[in-house]
């Protein structure tokens, strides 16, 4: 028994020492950063971002934000690293505060927190570091030194709804959502409104799967919708949406004449829809986080940092858009979509944010 306890003690010691070692490693870049901003390049504007748990290459908003920052860096002759542009990845929710603090201490003039998951962390750091300039994507933080960035997902989804309503042959389209959270509900509301505006007779079959990472649920749901007669499904469900693509592709593979389509989300998902020489991707609703990040960075560089404000990007400023359909949508439908787009931009149509 005594021996075993000794062993346990030893392993505990080992475990704590590795943990401490890990802490030590994290300290180092900070120290390096402190000395790093000694060379006084006051005029150079530097910008950095903290990802949420999705990671820098999530094919979604983190990746898009980083692309915006890289573009900003290139256009302003910045280099990756201190005094230029950089990012830190968060492995878990616990990293948000540390990462934000880390970047501020390294002297970045503007630090982005990406994703609504970081709302709390950004608010806390903004209070602790009133001098720092922060920005958050997909959430609102009411602090004088935080710029909040939102998107009108409903406007992009509206156009997708128009496309679906005009392209459907069965008179039935589907919407597969991830979790019932405000962002996804904006997609649903916009999609419904778009279908309604283009052709009120088209039926919309809506189902939430309750998860963003369960492809099998997406597949079964899509199977149900296609079986029930829907021919176009719009998904806003992250990796669950992979299953929607799988189901559509399988049907297309079995019967090349099958009329099944998927509308992708966030990024252009054309590559995911490839079946041999054909493709089941009708189009994708793009969320241009990169444009927003670029825009905010430019404003901040010019001394016009919109601290305390909430900026909403919609169709008008290319914050949301429809991806190239590569011929899947006919010319006359594209023209009608463009018409609706102009009406939204001109304010003649207001797309609802929530489903009544």
């Amino acid at each position, binding site marked *: 028994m005594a021996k075993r306890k000794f062993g346990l003690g030893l392993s505990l010691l080992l475990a704590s020492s590795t943990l401490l070692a890990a802490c030590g490693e994290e300290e180092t870049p900070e120290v390096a950063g402190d000395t790093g901003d000694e060379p006084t390049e006051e005029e150079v504007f530097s910008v950095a971002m903290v990802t949420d748990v999705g990671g820098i290459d999530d094919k979604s908003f983190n*990746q898009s934000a980083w692309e915006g920052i890289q573009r900003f860096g290139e256009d302003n002759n910045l280099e990756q690293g201190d005094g230029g542009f950089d990012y830190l990845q968060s492995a878990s929710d616990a990293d948000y505060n540390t990462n934000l603090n880390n970047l501020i201490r390294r002297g970045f003039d503007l630090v982005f927190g990406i994703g609504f998951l970081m709302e709390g962390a950004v608010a806390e750091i903004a209070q602790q570091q009133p001098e720092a300039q922060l920005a958050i994507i997909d959430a609102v933080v009411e602090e004088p030194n935080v710029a909040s960035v939102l998107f009108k997902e409903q406007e992009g989804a509206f156009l997708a709804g128009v496309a679906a309503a005009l392209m459907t042959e069965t008179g039935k389209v589907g919407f597969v959502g991830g979790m019932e959270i405000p962002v996804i509900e904006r997609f649903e509301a916009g999609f419904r409104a778009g279908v309604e505006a283009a052709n009120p007779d088209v039926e919309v079959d809506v189902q*939430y799967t309750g998860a963003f*990472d369960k492809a*099998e649920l997406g597949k079964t749901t899509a199977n*149900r919708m296609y*079986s029930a007669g829907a021919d176009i499904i719009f998904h806003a469900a992250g*990796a669950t949406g992979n*299953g929607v693509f799988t189901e559509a592709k399988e049907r297309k593979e*079995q019967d090349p004449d099958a009329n099944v389509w998927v509308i992708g989300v966030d990024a252009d998902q054309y590559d995911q829809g490839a079946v041999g020489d054909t493709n089941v991707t009708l189009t994708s609703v793009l969320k241009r986080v990169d444009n927003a990040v670029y825009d905010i960075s430019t404003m901040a560089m010019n001394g016009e940092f919109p601290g305390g404000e909430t900026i909403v990007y919609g169709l008008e400023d290319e914050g949301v858009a429809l991806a190239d359909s590569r011929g899947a949508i006919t010319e006359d439908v594209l023209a009608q979509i463009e018409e609706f787009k102009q009406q939204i931009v001109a304010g003649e149509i207001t797309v609802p944010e929530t489903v009544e």
Partner: protein
Amino acid sequence: MGLLEMINFIVPSAIFYAAPLIIVALGGVFSERSGVVNIGLEGLMVVGAFTGVVFNLFFVDVFGDATAWVSLIVAIIVGMLFSLLLAVAAVSFRADQVVTGVAINLLAVAATIFLVKKLFDKGQTDTIAVNFSRIDIGWFNQIPIIGDLYWTSILAIVLAFIAWGIIYYTPFGLRLRAVGEHPAAADTMGVNVTKMRYIAVMISGAMGGLGGAIYAQSISQDFGHATITGQGFMALAALIFGKWHPLGAMGAALFFGFAQSLSIVGTSLPFFSEIPTVFLYILPYVLTILALAGFIGRASAPKANGVPYIKGNR
């Protein structure tokens, strides 16, 4: 949806969902019947899914339409090799089997995502071009209810019966069970406990790899951090729910699949659509708890499960 249509939908999708779970759970049956607790099923699935997808992507030009099947074989081999980590630690070095299993799970996710980053320079792989689809044979598709099946689903069910035959009706199976119930007795009768346990763990590695590769190639079609999220644990639950019996594990996995498809088809049924969706989300888990607590009775593990065998110790 009429009743017949509903059954026509629920049964194939339940079997489809269950197929990877059945296979992985069978692997767990072998390992646990020999006395090695295998929490690492999830990790083995991750490795299998990764191997299947990556091999599929790189060798699709070589094997053409057969790529998905060749990928399964490769995933089996890699899963086996990966499970050797568990075998060496748990059998030879008598490490705590639960802790080792957890380590396998952590290692598998971290290592595969790391490799994906190195190979593809992004967070997930591309989408595979050749995958498993529904069986496409005219006369077969005409059969009601099961006409919508996948080859992989049939493979899973056949494997369950084979595993049942092996474990209960062959000398190998008898030795396997003996080693899991009372290794000292088996040892005195000349059964090599270490060897049996190594073989059993490697079978679980092979099945874990196979299940993961089937999942990735029939459902997600790419590999990333969100590909395998808990299916291995569902398989583990199926194994316990099925009382460490191959056919029981199969039944349990099918039951999970049934609950899962019911939760999806539910929204379009007249009665179910009144229920708030959150109750449909939790339906599979609630049904499982109810079944475990109420109908199955006490589930008893093999006696020597989780206990390293030390020769000469009583």
